[in-house]
């Protein structure tokens, strides 16, 4: 299959072109240490994009991921403040995130509410809960233990732990989506829900599982975010859910479901991450970032649509393509 038709390859190429352009202004950008920095900075987006990608595969959408992140992050910070050891906080954050995701999943599966409505609602509910449990107070850096804050930044073989966690998630997700029955079920459900039933797959349950995974990843990112930025309050990651969806769209994940890859979602996130980090370096005001990612999304959607244009009915024998 022609390499040029491969969506992920094209995106990787686009990223390389971007890097090339940036290098003309500032050669230091592509220094390994800087690239590592960019990668690390993009880690939360990558992790969330993978979760979102799985949800979108099943023909759903999860607009509550950022709120989930904020809530689990705050809970992590509060637990830290109460003296709970990190070795319990981390799994607790993931579990809490998964539970929040399960709320979404159950409402979609059992009650049959469209996911856009469910996650619109839970998005505000989750953030609101942060306020209820903190009364609007922030948790600041000096209120967090050193160990809590240090983990994402701790260096291991040249990369911060947060980057390693992202890499681990990427590998796990690739494995799970490629090698487990559930992973393949995500694709089947989104690709042809009708046929999926005939192969014994429960569509609603698969969708619920996708929300649980998306929530769990948001929970993990919640801890990473508050620990890395050393602050927790109601509005952290405000609006981030749209960046996450953007990363997926740019990465070739079809909003119609059934198509997309971990590599695509990750590359989409990296694309946005490179832009975000490159702008200050190239002396383009960071205020250009939003417009650029917006244009990238529109172009990506148009490109997606052209690629998956359905073929017409072929009746005339002479018109058959051999």
């Amino acid at each position, binding site marked *: *299959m022609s390499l040029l038709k491969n969506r992920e390859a094209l995106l990787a190429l686009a990223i390389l072109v971007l890097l090339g352009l940036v290098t003309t202004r500032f050669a230091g950008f592509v220094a390994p240490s800087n690239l590592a920095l960019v990668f690390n900075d993009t880690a939360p987006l990558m992790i969330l994009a993978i979760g979102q990608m799985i949800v979108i595969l099943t023909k759903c959408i999860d607009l509550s991921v950022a709120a989930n992140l904020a809530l689990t992050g705050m809970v992590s910070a509060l637990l830290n403040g109460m003296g709970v050891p990190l070795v319990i906080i981390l799994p607790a954050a993931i579990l809490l995130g998964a539970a929040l995701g399960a709320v979404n999943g159950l409402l979609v599966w059992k009650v049959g509410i469209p996911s856009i409505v469910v996650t619109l609602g839970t998005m505000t509910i989750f953030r609101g809960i942060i306020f209820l449990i903190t009364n609007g107070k922030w948790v600041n850096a000096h209120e967090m233990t050193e160990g809590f804050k240090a983990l994402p930044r701790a260096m291991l073989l040249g990369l911060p732990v947060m980057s390693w966690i992202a890499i681990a998630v990427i590998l796990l997700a690739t494995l799970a989506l490629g090698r487990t029955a559930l992973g393949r079920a995500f694709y089947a459900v989104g*690709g042809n829900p*009708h*046929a999926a039933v*005939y192969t014994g797959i429960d569509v609603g349950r698969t969708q619920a599982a996708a929300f649980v995974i998306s929530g769990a990843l948001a929970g993990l990112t919640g801890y990473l975010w508050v620990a890395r930025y050393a602050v927790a309050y109601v509005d952290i990651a405000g609006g981030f859910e749209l960046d996450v969806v953007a990363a997926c769209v740019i990465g070739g994940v079809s909003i119609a479901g*059934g198509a997309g890859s971990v590599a695509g979602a990750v590359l989409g996130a990296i694309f946005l991450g490179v832009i975000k980090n490159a702008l200050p370096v190239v002396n383009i005001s960071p205020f250009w970032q939003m417009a650029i990612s917006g244009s990238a999304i529109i172009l990506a959607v148009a490109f997606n649509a052209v690629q998956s244009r359905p073929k017409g*009915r072929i*009746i*005339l024998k002479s018109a058959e393509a051999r």
Partner: protein
Amino acid sequence: MQPVLSLRGISKSFPGVKALSGVQLDLYPGQVTALVGENGAGKSTIVKVLTGIYQPDEGTISVNGAETRFPTAEAAAAAGVTAIHQETVLFDELSVAENIWLGHAPRSRFGLIDWKAMREGARKLLTSIGADLDPDLKLRDLGIASKHLVAIARALSIDARVVIMDEPTASLSHKEIHELYELVDKLKSQGKAILFISHKFDEIFRIADRYTVFRDGAFVGEGRVSEVTESDLVRLMVGRSVDQIFPARAHNIGDEVLTVAGYNHPTEFADIGFTLRQGEILGFYGLVGAGRSEVMQALFGMTRPSKGAMRLDGQVRVVRSADEAIAAGIVYVPEDRGRQGAVKGLPIFQNVTLPSLPATSRNGFLRLAEEFRLTRHYTQRLDLRAAALDQDVGLLSGGNQQKVVIAKWLATKPRVIILDEPTKGIDIGSKAAVHEFMAELAAEGLAVIMVSSEIPEVLGMSDRVIVMREGRIVAEYSGDAMTPENLVRAAAGLETAA
């Protein structure tokens, strides 16, 4: 030899329609049984019963002599029954190998899917059926012939005992059809029982060992293919009881209303030309996929022909969209009532007035009184059965929904009305009403085109019949030449009597 699968006394009804009444079917290992019958004979219904999608109202299913049931699609698959349909029910975005193995993929040590084994297994299966396909290709990139092969490979991966092929050659080229025949021979040699559904007699005589004929949902005969001729089969297929009466026709055929010449489309039809007169009912017969609906949709402006001209009352008329067609007086009652005909969710009166809003409204503002008046008039004419005119059209029976659709188009006061399979899937009572009505319309001076795959309907209603095959017009019959045999042969590409 004992049949591997046996059906006895199977009946299946839907609201208003008896699709199957007490049919029987036997499938023998290592043999191909052809299931023959017209559209509406019950073939697709029996396939759904065999694959566990429908539950029969009555009757028994036996596998190797033991009575059993197929409560779900999975149960049928577990019993070794698989089907390959015209439209493949597989996953376009997944690879060939995955489509073959989805749901029962080979696992490696840790319970993870073993792609290597999947690919190997897929390669083996594909080779065994003579398919030279790369197992990593996405299904979306394959042509319909190759998709069929993947479906067959999937059937083999489940170690099927019974393989049902429903019009598998509908869109294949000659070479691909030949390859399919060789594949069928191979499956036979593996001891599988094959149910082959086809309209094409050359196929039936080439590969089938036995035949079973259905007609109007009933079993009418079976036997060995070597002991019958084409004519025998045709006679079994179309022979009629005398019950169905068609309305008397006044036959006041007037001037030419519509002339179509040289209509061409890149992929759907070529060299389409015909004339239509006032007061005439012109029947269009052909097999499924012959291109009739495509031609009609082009006349209605839904698709654009690449070449060709249309004249209405002698004036050249260019129709580029549905509303232009309606303005020109050409309307189209679609075959797919649910998707293209009725807007479920809207009440009856809103469906009826939808294309006529400019006439019933004033300056863009709706006038409900006018809409109800119009709806009352046309629904009474068609003898609609409904609780109220503001009832959701989706709640009506198929026959009544069809009446609403026809009412909708009559309300636009057309000159030409095209009806695509107007009585498909509706009960006898409504069928007769629709036929009566069509006759009235023709008598009033409308020009009617009727696309139909039901021989008695075509012959009973039409003044002339045009037969299409593979996107072209292959014959036109009128008067004494309008016989069932001629129609069936022309549509299937056989020689016909003059």
